[in-house]
């Protein structure tokens, strides 16, 4: 069982070095990364960017490619931008130009340090020719040519240079100035040296830079110049969150970084995610199956789905059906019609009765007269009615099931870490019930989906500088959609998106929070409107990330939009009660506290907060 428990538990690429070979599945966009051009890999935290970029690193790529170093088509290095370090290259003590020079020197040192590691590895693997020369790189980094004869000496020199740079940035007024290498230059020299001095056939050199969003706008402009000027054999692969590439400027104000001229763009989420995620899960199931675990190798056999009819039955459609039968039995015209109706159909009739306030008998007669119209109606509204079935039934633990590959993939919405987390938690929830039956039933999947939503919600507060603001918005808007899903009466079904309206100023304030929320997977933006510039897009429509749909018990699939005034949304900051009242409408009766799902009820202090 331990093997089963850990089968999907590994959603951090960095922890899986021993499992990398077994579990790594080539993502559908990988050919773009392996191409000679530079490439921007865009996706939220957990979408697999880091795994993909790290898999290009020389020592990880070799076993994956199954080639000796001399036959490898490319040699990659990997660098992560550390958010606790890059802000230091700014301040009143030096001019902006001096800081820029210092930052470029720092980046040169970091990249060259990684290239030293690559060179050492090539030498160990006898893939370095005797002609390999490091002197130009050493000179360009300010080293003394005669003292730096190989990559080991250069590595040591770079470490000393980093220490000198550290002393300087911590006290630029008092410390001795440091040598500042020219932007890009040492990196280019080093790449050429490896290209000319290795025994690898025409190797491409990939410089993979992760967490590009951590650079300040000005630093991005500097790094953009590296990317713009990259020439074979060198190219850059940079991982960035959505909205994380905040400027396309380069050092030269008139020279913008453009796609596709300077780099290709890959949006992880929009690149056959479902196919990729299914392959990742299937690979793990196959490994487990071959290792003797009682699991199927097909994902659809592993996580059970429910049809809408099955789900309605499980949720208690028969209770409504019995009530409808009791009420319609006296009507002689409806006897035969009634006896041929299923529980779910009669439950739907009860739902429609509550939605339209037309009498049950009138509706039943209309159905009898025009069955085609009602078949269409059921097709369109049965899903929405599912959320209503258990309304008012106190103590009901599950009011909507979230199960099956399609639902879980939809909830993960392009995020492989979320998908694996849903599977992992589903396994745990299944094992809590008792012996493992060889598959995951819908109920533990639903329990797992709520737990994952809860965990993500907990993390939200800390994800960003404005995490609390974003969390308040998620709590507020999630509750609004919960309420709407439970009371679909006189309303369009499945409203789970929203459009922000109001004065340009208010909309802009809300938009800023939402865009940051999108970057951190609290929200998703839909239908981007016309770009106002190369890198700034206005997003008109938003929804909560579907990973929260089970937590707030509304539809995970993207459907209809409501208009939310920005002024009301802003009230979630200090007056959530009023914000909800405005977004739901004055006549809306929210669910009683006792009837709230426990995961929502625990935030009642927040929902009740604010002035009345």
């Amino acid at each position: 069982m331990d093997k089963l428990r850990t089968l999907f538990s590994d959603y951090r690429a960095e922890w899986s070095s021993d499992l990398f070979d077994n579990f790594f599945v080539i993502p559908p966009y990988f050919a773009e990364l392996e191409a000679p051009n530079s490439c921007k890999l865009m996706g939220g935290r957990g979408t697999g960017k880091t795994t993909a970029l790290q898999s290009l690193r020389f020592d990880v790529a070799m076993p994956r490619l199954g080639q000796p170093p001399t036959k490898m088509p490319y040699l990659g290095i990997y660098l992560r931008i550390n958010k606790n370090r890059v802000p230091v290259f700014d301040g009143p003590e030096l001019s902006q130009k001096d800081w820029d020079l210092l930052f470029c020197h720092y980046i040169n040192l970091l990249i060259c340090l990684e290239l030293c590691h690559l060179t050492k590895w090539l030498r160990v693997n006898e893939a370095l020719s005797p002609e390999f020369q490091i002197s130009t790189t050493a000179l360009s980094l300010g080293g003394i040519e005669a003292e730096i004869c190989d990559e080991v000496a250069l590595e040591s020199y770079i470490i000393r240079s980093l220490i000198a740079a550290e002393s300087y940035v911590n006290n630029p007024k008092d410390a001795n100035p440091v040598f500042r290498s020219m932007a890009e230059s040492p990196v280019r020299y080093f790449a050429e040296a490896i290209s000319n001095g290795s025994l690898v056939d025409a190797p491409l050199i990939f410089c993979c830079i992760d967490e590009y969003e951590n650079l300040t706008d000005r630093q991005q402009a500097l790094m953009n110049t590296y990317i713009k000027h990259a020439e074979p054999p060198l190219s850059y692969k940079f991982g960035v969150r959505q909205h994380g590439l905040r400027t396309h400027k380069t050092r030269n104000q008139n020279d913008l970084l453009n796609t596709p001229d300077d780099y290709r763009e890959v949006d992880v989420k929009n690149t056959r995610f479902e196919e990729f995620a299914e392959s990742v899960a299937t690979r793990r199931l196959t490994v487990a199956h071959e290792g003797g675990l009682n699991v199927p190798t097909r994902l659809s056999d592993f996580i059970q789905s429910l049809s809408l009819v099955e789900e309605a039955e499980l949720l208690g459609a028969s209770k409504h059906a019995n009530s409808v039968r009791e009420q319609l039995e006296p009507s002689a015209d409806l006897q035969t019609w009634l006896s041929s109706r299923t529980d779910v159909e009669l439950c739907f009739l009860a739902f429609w009765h509550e939605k339209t306030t037309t009498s049950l008998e009138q509706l039943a007669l209309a159905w009898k007269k025009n069955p085609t119209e009602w078949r269409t109606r059921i097709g369109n509204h049965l899903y929405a009615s599912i959320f209503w079935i258990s309304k008012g039934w106190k103590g009901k633990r599950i009011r909507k099931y979230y199960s099956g590959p399609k639902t879980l993939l939809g909830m993960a919405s392009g995020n492989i870490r979320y998908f694996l987390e849903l599977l992992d938690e589903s396994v745990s929830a299944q094992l809590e019930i008792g012996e493992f039956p060889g598959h995951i039933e819908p109920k533990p999947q639903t329990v797992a989906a709520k737990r994952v939503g809860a965990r993500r919600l907990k993390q939200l507060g800390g994800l960003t500088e404005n995490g609390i603001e974003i969390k308040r918005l998620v709590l507020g808007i999630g509750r609004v959609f919960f309420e709407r899903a439970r009371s679909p009466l006189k309303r369009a079904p499945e409203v789970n998106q929203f459009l922000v309206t109001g004065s340009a100023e208010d909309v802009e304030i809300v938009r800023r929070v939402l865009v940051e929320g999108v970057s951190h997977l609290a929200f998703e933006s839909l239908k981007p409107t016309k770009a106002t510039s190369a890198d700034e897009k206005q997003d008109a429509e938003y929804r909560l990330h579907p990973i929260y749909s089970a937590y707030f018990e509304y539809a995970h699939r993207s459907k209809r939009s409501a208009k939310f005034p920005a002024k009301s949304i802003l009230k979630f900051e200090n007056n959530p009660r009023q914000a909800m009242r405005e977004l739901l409408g004055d006549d809306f009766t929210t669910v009683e506290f006792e009837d709230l799902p426990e995961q929502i009820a625990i935030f009642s202090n927040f929902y009740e907060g604010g002035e009345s």
Partner: protein
Amino acid sequence: MTSDWTIHDRFEPNLIRPDEMAVFAGGSSEDRGRISLWDDVQNHRPTRCISITTPPPTVPSDLLQATFTCGKIARTVHLRSTSAIVEITKGRGLFLDISGLPHHVWAPLLRAGISSGVSVRAMYVEPERYRHHSSPSSNSMFDLSTGNLGLSPLPGFASISSNHDPRQQVFVPMLGFEGTRALYLSQQLDPSPPHTIPIVGVPGFRPEYPTTTIACNLDFLDEFDAYSHIRMAPANDMFTIVKILDTLRKEFPSFRLLVAPVGTKPHALGAVVYAIREFSHVELMYDNPIRRPQRTFGVGKVHIYTIS
């Protein structure tokens, strides 16, 4: 370092030694942030007092300078410049009232004092109570900050030369009432370090504070399953923090300590002193909160720590 630490019911000017340069906040919306007696002290010994003002920061680079006023002379000082700080403090021993000064101001002062070899004493005045949140959530019972400027090194404490493997790091957050702060800093570490060892102030300044601290940090503690790893240090005791960090260095000899001083101010003091001493093994992680005006009320006990 000796654990010389005294506790007083209230601040008295004679607690300052005649040769010390007294340094305190130029203004504060908190009662304890700038106690009224500083006005008397300033009138009495104008050339041996420095009051520091900082405009509300909007970007991280705003955290790099402050206005130091000594007598009638006001100067803008670059906080990363040890020589500028030593010059304005005239090389005297320092008596720092850190109660109303933000971390980005007192930490460089401490560093300048220690590195220039003068005596350094720090004073911390407890508040009587904290401002409650009008619509609290699980990790924001108190309303202490309006946001933060994000992860950025305290002036003079940037660590850019270490190339440590992320799997060889220990995250040591000092927990306080703002549960999202440790959570935020932990989220900046991806992958998470293999060890997370939170420090909680026990006993607290008030009996209920340790429980409140845990309650405000449940999300963080749950996320890292860190309950069983919690270490405790009295909330007002900077010296126990130094000892704990020293112990952790010995327990994890090849690891780098990522220390987040986001708990009590005396804990932060201990963390900063340790980071000055063990710079190559310790990296401070700080989120630079934007303090809410009037975040605390009242004036409580006074603590004076002899640091060097």
